């Protein structure tokens, strides 16, 4: 069927099986690299994108459900020359090792910061829990989100023991 998807501020009309998960359309038809295939099961978050501001697993979301919705991938935030504040914070904190999970991490964090730039540390950690990192870059990812929250005029409450 023909479907129009609104991705990163632009409409894209394409032919696809309506049951196709968004991930494959983003990577295949739209040639976007940010969302990654990790599990196809909604367990790891490597494929995380925003739909109407909320973080969703693009590997599980069929495109049939997405017409008229605002889809945003990490490519929609900024570029290497002009990174968004959140991307810039990931660069400053060098918050990546292999980095395969990082675009998904950024999109999940973006959804949180759009809702509130003043989460508690416990809220931040709970919010990020659906996304897996295997390199153990978690502490840096949290630092990057805290840095971005501050840059956006808010800040994450830093009492780390509260988060336990």
């Amino acid at each position, binding site marked *: 069927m023909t479907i129009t998807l609104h991705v990163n501020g632009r409409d894209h009309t394409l032919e696809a099986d309506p049951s196709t998960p968004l991930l494959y359309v983003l990577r295949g038809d739209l040639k976007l690299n*940010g969302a990654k295939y990790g599990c196809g099961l909604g367990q790891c978050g490597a494929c995380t994108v925003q739909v109407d501001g909320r973080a969703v697993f693009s590997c599980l979301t069929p495109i049939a459900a997405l017409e008229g919705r605002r889809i945003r991938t990490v490519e929609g935030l900024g570029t290497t020359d002009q990174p968004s504040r959140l991307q810039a914070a990931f660069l400053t904190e060098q918050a990546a090792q292999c980095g395969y999970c990082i675009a998904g991490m950024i999109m999940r964090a973006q959804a949180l910061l759009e809702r509130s730039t003043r989460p508690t540390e416990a809220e931040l950690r709970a919010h990020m829990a659906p996304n897996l990192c295997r390199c153990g870059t978690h502490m840096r990812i949290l630092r990057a989100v805290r840095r971005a929250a501050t840059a956006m005029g808010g800040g994450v409450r830093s009492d780390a023991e509260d988060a336990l």
Partner: protein
Amino acid sequence: MSALTRRRLLGQGALVVAFSLSRRATAQVAEKKPALPGDLDKYPLLDSWIRIDADGHITAFTGKAELGQGLKTALIQVAADELAVPPASIELITADTARTPDEGVTSGSHSMQDSGAAILNAAANVRVLLTEAAAWRWLVAAEQVELHDGAAHAPNGESLGYGELAAMLSLHVEAKPDVARREKGVRLIGTDLARVDIPAKVTGGVAYVQDMRLPGMLHARVVRGPSEGTWPKPADVDAAARMPGVVQVVRDGGFTAVLATQEWQAVKALQRLQSAGWDRPGTPLPAEDMRDAIRRLPSQEVPIFDYPGPPTPSDGKVVKARYSRPCLMHGSIGPSCAVALWENDGVTVWTHSQGVYPLRKSLAELLRLPANKVRCIHAEGSGCYGHNGADDVAADAALAARAVSGRPVRLQWMREQEHGWEPLGSAMVVELEATLADGGIAGWRHDVWSNAHSTRPVTAGGLLAGAEHDPPFPRQIPKPIPMPEGGGHRNGNPLYAITNAKGTYHFIEQAPVRVSALRSLGAHMNVFAIECFMDELAKAAGADPLAFRLAHMTDARAREVMQTAADRFGWAGRVKGGGGRGCGFAFARYKNLAAYCAVAMEVAVDRDSGDIKIPRVVAAVDSGEAVNPDGIRNQVEGAIIQSLSWTIHEAVAFDTTHRLSFDWSAYPILRFDALPATVDVHLIDRPRTPFLGTGEAGQGPAAAALANAVADAVSLRIRDMPLAPEKVKAVLRS
């Protein structure tokens, strides 16, 4: 890999390789020469490592690969520092069988020691040649020539670019030993240069082999049962071949792959091809825990160490303990992937293998091609942490692509294939016995049982597809990795000053399940056991765990690392153990020849749930000369977190037919809500000393520090990993 065009990927280099990649064995004359640093000794010609074009463009070459450990950045820093140019002036080419030296496998925390040292010294040699060329041109003394920013500068203000100078000389010469490092000017080594690969990774650039899109590329999936030893039942291949977008179902002996124009079409066809179910025709898997199962198998006794000393005093206090870990998974977040293209009776494979040269050899045998018809080019993948599916999927892609010569094929494994087929880190058992006399260690026995810790492919039989070939290629017979590196016995020899001490590795060749190298190999288990045992001995001797360690340690750098971690942690004033709260300490020098690492940790154990919370972790590390201190911190932070995941949360489960840990719900790993509150890593930099590999230094100490902290908190020792909540709860109730 910014502009990842086919021309860029395939082009360049092919003509210039033959003459500069000769190994020392063939390049060398009969007389014995002094050893050169790192892999420069194997490839002494300077242009194997550094080339300078007439336009001044500088290319550095490494046979090692970027695995997310920051290798590219560190090697660029090393080359740029010694050549006195900005880092952006260096183009670095990583592992590629057509272009770079054969530096074996990127593993064992070897890259800085092998390749970093080689590039550093090759660059120093090149700098000297450039200086001499400029001095000759200007008829001045070499000491009067200054090199910076890609040019040589004369006292009278004249300058000559590196390109002009390079055109005057040949870099196709052997390196000289003992060339002095650059003394003057701005240093890059020791600075936190930002990683060159991260910008693309945070903005959705082309960063991974998974992101490659070559013209006309097809997407493929390989058809397999759920895990090693299983086979899919015959499926309706014709029905799958008729599905939308399917180009071909490739069958070759027991190998089956499906090719489609779009990725989701390939996935749907795979589901169809797997829908008939599966069998396990061969021997069932053991019903018991893998630790017990491997102990029943025959073993080869390999001595680890034997430190003679006075016999154990008869009135000494004997302490014994047994420690164990289950099979562990690498668990890459991105399933393994490769792109293959057949052209001119040969194949090019873009792969995230850790060893492009051994992979080429294995593929050549599998595909019945001469090695020079197989080119393996490293392209980044998801972090691997050892031998995961990278090599196997490269073979799968090559076989799938053979059916469509001229068209590139991208083949990625599914999540359940990575979980089901990746080689596991072996289950392990360690038994320790020591005698205490006069408050010190007077005798020590270490026995470790384990399957092999490397089955990396060096023949077709080392690849999954090799076993699916008709007839199957003979499987590789694993051998114990010799000390001082060691496999299952890696770090089985404590660095402590002990005598009357002996260690034995009980190497079990026969493996009920597929096993291979997992980050730090046996060091995770051996350091866990030794460092837990040191705490048990300290307790038996009535000594403080840190003081007991220091009393048995003569290595000054080890002592400083321990003392630094302890001071930064506030060990002397730590919370008193008991009531669910406690602190633990552990130390190791990786392989006793790489980085030193000490970890101190505080835990809070919930007696009702068995849950372990970690208020803080403090580590100290000595990596020799720190090229990129932040990169080292990143690696050590990662090692600690990953090891906490292994040690608290992970165990691969089996029934008698297959692996049960088929996804992240069946094999849970650490998530954000279980993180420590803080992790601090302190570096002890040792400028102008050899680089000491760091990537695997933290796993053992982190695991043992955790177990020691838990023992301190609940006054009970848990010796079998994982320290999962159910086990902690059970121990507390016992």
